[in-house]
């Protein structure tokens, strides 16, 4: 966990309101575990007092870079979208506990992503595909919002759904998963909480992990902003510190 000024190598629109940004730095990129996130300072001065949590979508150790994919949904992500090459970003990270995947071998793994929940799963799919068989079901709102389909196809059998049916299957990811009817051993999901709940329900028979999101203050476990109910003794976890990846059977959404 470091605080470091990262340099913007690239920042480009890749889908509706969705940007891919490549960041370079000496320390943070080389520390990243798959599934972790970074906490990004927004703007100069005192207008924005909260950082923005964004997942890490990919890391390139040799180049000392990492990639994030973010959707412009408010003032902070709008500000990010305006950054130009060579711009600097104050980043705290990598934060949280990511996906623990070392034990997988020749497993048949399902990855389920929705919207801006897709990015952390890309890094995951790439890593998992080295020793496993991976299927990815990715849901988006509409055709223009779809991103990274070809990238996922390199590493996973990839199905796309859109809410309005303008691309790929129409409707929710759960409908597609139902039809797949395959012998998955584990699943990993990240996306809006409605989707996670549906997947958690549908796949309750399976070992699964969810990557959760919640509005955050500190991002490091100090402020209790980002808790989620949990079956552990305390009754809760802090998503920023104990998550964002958590065992699906243990979190109460």
């Amino acid at each position, binding site marked *: 966990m470091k605080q470091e000024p990262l340099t913007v190598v690239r920042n480009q629109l890749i889908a509706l309101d969705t940007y891919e940004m490549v960041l370079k730095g000496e320390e943070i990129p080389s520390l990243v575990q798959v599934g972790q996130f970074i906490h990004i300072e927004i703007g100069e001065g005192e207008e924005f*007092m*909260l950082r923005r949590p964004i997942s890490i979508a990919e890391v390139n150790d040799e180049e000392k870079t990492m990639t994030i994919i973010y959707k412009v949904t408010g003032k902070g992500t709008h500000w990010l979208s305006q950054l130009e090459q060579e711009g600097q970003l104050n980043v705290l990270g990598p934060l949280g506990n990511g996906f623990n995947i070392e034990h997988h071998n020749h497993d048949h793994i399902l990855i389920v992503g929705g919207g801006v929940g897709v990015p952390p799963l890309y890094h995951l799919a790439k890593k998992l595909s080295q020793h496993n068989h991976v299927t990815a079901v990715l849901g988006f709102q509409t055709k223009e919002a779809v991103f990274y389909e070809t990238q996922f196809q390199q590493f996973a059998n990839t199905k796309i759904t859109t809410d309005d049916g303008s691309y790929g299957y129409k409707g929710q990811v759960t409908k597609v998963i139902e039809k797949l009817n395959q012998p998955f051993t584990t699943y990993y999901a990240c996306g809006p909480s409605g989707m996670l709940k549906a997947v958690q329900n549908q796949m309750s028979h399976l070992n699964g992990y969810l990557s959760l999101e919640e*509005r955050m*203050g*500190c991002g490091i476990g*100090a402020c*209790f902003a*980002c*808790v989620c*109910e949990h079956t552990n003794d305390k009754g809760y976890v802090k998503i920023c510190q104990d998550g964002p990846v958590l065992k699906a059977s243990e979190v109460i959404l």
Partner: protein
Amino acid sequence: MNLNVSLGEVELKNPVMPASGCFGFGKEFSPFYNLNELGAIAIKAATGKARYGNPTPRVAEASSGMLNAIGLQNPGVDGIIKDELPYLQNYDTPIIANVAGSTLEEYVQVTSKLTDEPAIKAIELNISCPNVKEGGVQFGTDPQLAYEVTKAVKSVSTKPVFVKLSPNVTDVVAIADAVYKAGADGLSMINTLTGMRIDLNKKKPIIANGTGGLSGPAIKPIAIKMIHEVRQQIDLPIIGMGGITSTEDILEFLLAGADAIAVGTANFKDPFICKRLIDELPETLRQYGFGSLQEVREQGCHNQSILL
């Protein structure tokens, strides 16, 4: 430059501490710097039993500030003593224990458990949390109740008691005066102002609790004004807070009448901030012509030219 400060009988290496609720129980910030650098640490509020707090979302952003409605989540006083204080005992930084409750009895019970812990050098009586449905802020908005809870807590505390005041009042001096008369050893001011943001997509408050406490630079002028006002009338040490992000801010609080200061929200933006402010403070004091904190106090609050 010697930055020592005495808050009554509590001695600090320097006047800078993290504010309660913004620093957990310290551990999370120890990767960033040595906690021994700090003047003190105000830890997260303790209640009688463990509390889960409010539903999420619990934070929202605002211009130059944020709203929070954590709802006093904490492991309970016994959990804090068992699991959190032993770690803090490793440091020689005074710990200020923030005490909350729904009833007068709960305040008394929590204080009596904490007061004999050696790491704890003072009690901060939180009668100003706007984010819980019962207790908390009502003790901080009614002078009579503020008097009673302070008196009761003082009667069981072996450590100095600082009362943390709410800014959500018509007359903060009346509350300060009540707790002074009840025997308070100092004041912490200010806690957050109650606020709300509405989610335009969902058409309801962003924070699940509806309202939350506004903190950050947005509230700084309100904090300065209240500290200045109370300083003129009540002779108690004041820990000042509300929007501090720079050493210039610290100087502004000290000139207004604070004896030490706490940094809350700014820790979320820059986890190194408390250490950085401590390192930079001597240079800033010099730049504005001060040779010591004592000189600041003399030219600030105790100088009649600043009185109104």
